């Protein structure tokens, strides 16, 4: 059992079930992201862990202790909000020291800890300022320092970067990750930005309709999505309905070309997924198989050229790098595209 253990968690608002049977076990020091479309229940799940919503059913345990019955201020869980939520009437230092003061930490000890935390988030000089005198990125760092100052057992962040502009978002997410590693704090990070989730997380929980569709490392999520939703939501993806030629041997046909999947499949057709970067106009390795295709669209995106090609009834996107000595094929040309059958992902429903 993990450090933070969530089992069979459910939440309904009136008749609508927003979180349905959510299970997750988080190891100590792990960085977990909740990734999913708007309204899928990420915030609601996080708020149940924080204690701001009461679960309709299920348990949440930290170090084996059920915390569902504890009030938010008894849980020792840090929270960072999208809107920063700094106390406007307090200076940066007083904001960071708020939790320590509530806990009855002496003034001297408090000052020391506040200075340490402000140092960690790189705002050592800003203690005497008021929140309104800081930029959004700085405010969010103060909020992070404030949440971490009381040494919470778990840190929760609900889309902490989505109010910031793109550049700061990237630099701050790296900083947050570095601080999290340094302090070794168990963290849950909510986002609907897949790049954020993929780049920061130890593991990602892809959520849809109140269910955790897949829980796995970013590499797994991207390369071996287990459901159609995950495959579709993370990255760009070709979805192919292929005919099964020989189920037990795992051979399927796309546009008449037999392709061995290397694992048995059932039924007459099977849903396959394929990343655009796994398809190319020239063979990338000895294992690649050619498929006859017709070029239907060419999009020049700068360093990458995205091409759509028709293979039988299927339409595939493929990405090729732009090189000056290999101009893209014209639309309508009959060509061969290459792919490694092992890159084909079989989607369970």
């Amino acid at each position, binding site marked *: 059992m993990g450090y933070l253990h969530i089992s069979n968690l459910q939440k309904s608002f009136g008749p609508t079930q927003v979180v349905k049977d959510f299970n997750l076990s988080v190891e100590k020091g792990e960085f977990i992201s909740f990734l999913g479309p708007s309204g899928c229940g990420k915030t609601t799940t996080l708020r149940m862990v*924080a*204690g*701001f919503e009461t679960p309709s059913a299920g348990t949440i345990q930290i170090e084996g202790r059920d915390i569902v019955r504890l*009030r*938010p*201020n*008894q*849980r*020792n*869980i*840090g*929270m960072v*909000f999208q*809107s920063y*939520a*700094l*106390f*406007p*009437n307090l200076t940066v230092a007083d904001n960071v020291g*708020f*939790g320590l003061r*509530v*806990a009855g930490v002496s003034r001297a000890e408090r000052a020391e800890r506040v200075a340490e935390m402000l140092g960690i988030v790189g705002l050592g000089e800003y203690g005497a300022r*008021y*929140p*309104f005198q800081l930029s959004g990125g700085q405010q969010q760092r103060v*909020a992070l320092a*404030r*949440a971490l100052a*009381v040494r919470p057992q778990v840190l929760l962040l609900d889309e902490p970067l989505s109010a910031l502009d793109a550049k700061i978002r990237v630099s701050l997410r790296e900083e947050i990750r570095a601080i999290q590693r340094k302090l070794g704090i168990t963290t849950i990070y909510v986002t609907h930005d897949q790049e954020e989730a993929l780049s920061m997380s130890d593991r990602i929980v892809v959520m849809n309709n109140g269910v955790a569709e897949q829980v796995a490392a970013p590499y797994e999520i991207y390369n071996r999505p287990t459901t159609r939703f995950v495959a579709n939501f993370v990255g760009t993806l070709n979805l192919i309905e292929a005919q099964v030629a020989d189920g037990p041997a795992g051979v399927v046909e796309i546009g008449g070309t037999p392709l061995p999947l290397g694992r048995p499949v059932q039924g007459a057709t099977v849903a396959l997924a394929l990343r655009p970067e796994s398809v190319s106009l020239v063979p990338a390795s000895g294992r690649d198989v050619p498929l006859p295709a017709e070029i239907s669209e060419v999009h020049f995106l700068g360093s990458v050229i995205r091409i759509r090609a028709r293979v039988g009834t299927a339409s595939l996107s493929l990405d090729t790098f732009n090189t000056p000595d290999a101009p893209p094929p014209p639309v309508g040309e009959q060509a061969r595209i290459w792919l490694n059958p092992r890159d084909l992902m079989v989607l369970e429903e």
Partner: protein
Amino acid sequence: MRMQRVWAWVALAFGLVYFFLPLIGTVEFSLRMRRGEYSLDAYRVVLSDPRFQQTFSYSVVMALCTIVVGVLIVVPTAYWVRLRLPRLRPIVEFVTLLPLVIPPIVIVFGYIRMYNTSSFLPLTGSATGTNFLLMMGYTTLALPYMYRAVDTGLRAIDIRTLTEAAQSLGAGWFTIMARVIMPNVLVAILSGAFLTFAIVIGEFVLAALLNRPAFGPYLQLVGANRAYEPAALAVIAFSITWICMGLIQLVTRFSRHTQARR
């Protein structure tokens, strides 16, 4: 176009005359106690009257108590309604408006009936009890202003997220009220407080019918028996109201300086 402008100026001038003429008249009259020349004699007489000092300080103390009680009732209520019971807001707002439509005389007769010496709670039987009753009456009269001021102040901050942030840092309700909510609506509380002060200082009906030595009944008494002093008193009372208004402005300006751009 030109005609419209002219009429606008005429209307404004009429308004100003309507408003200021009686005021100027009162001020002028209050200065004429000494025959043949302007003097502050009327003010001297009024200010040295021990009854003035007694009733005025009584009303000031009552006003301060009313403000404290009003704040303690209104701030948590408005906060809780905004945080947890947003659907009740129209109802609560309606209730807080009731004192504007129910005349004070109705309120005070209700009090006298409810809390007379033969009732279950004989508040009117003692001076302290009556003072308490009077203060609660004042609180009721000031409720619409206090509630509106505080509610507007609460709207300006994201109380829900601030509350949750404080909770996640371990704060209980008392800490949240005292260290997060109150300081952030202080300006609103102060403007409500000044309005309350102005109302209580000039209030007549409740104090007279409960027979307490407040400033309002004293004003009336002097007005009925003297010539120049009532004018001086009116000017004094009016100045207090205006000073309160000015202080509201000042506090608002001051706070904008320290808490701009939230």
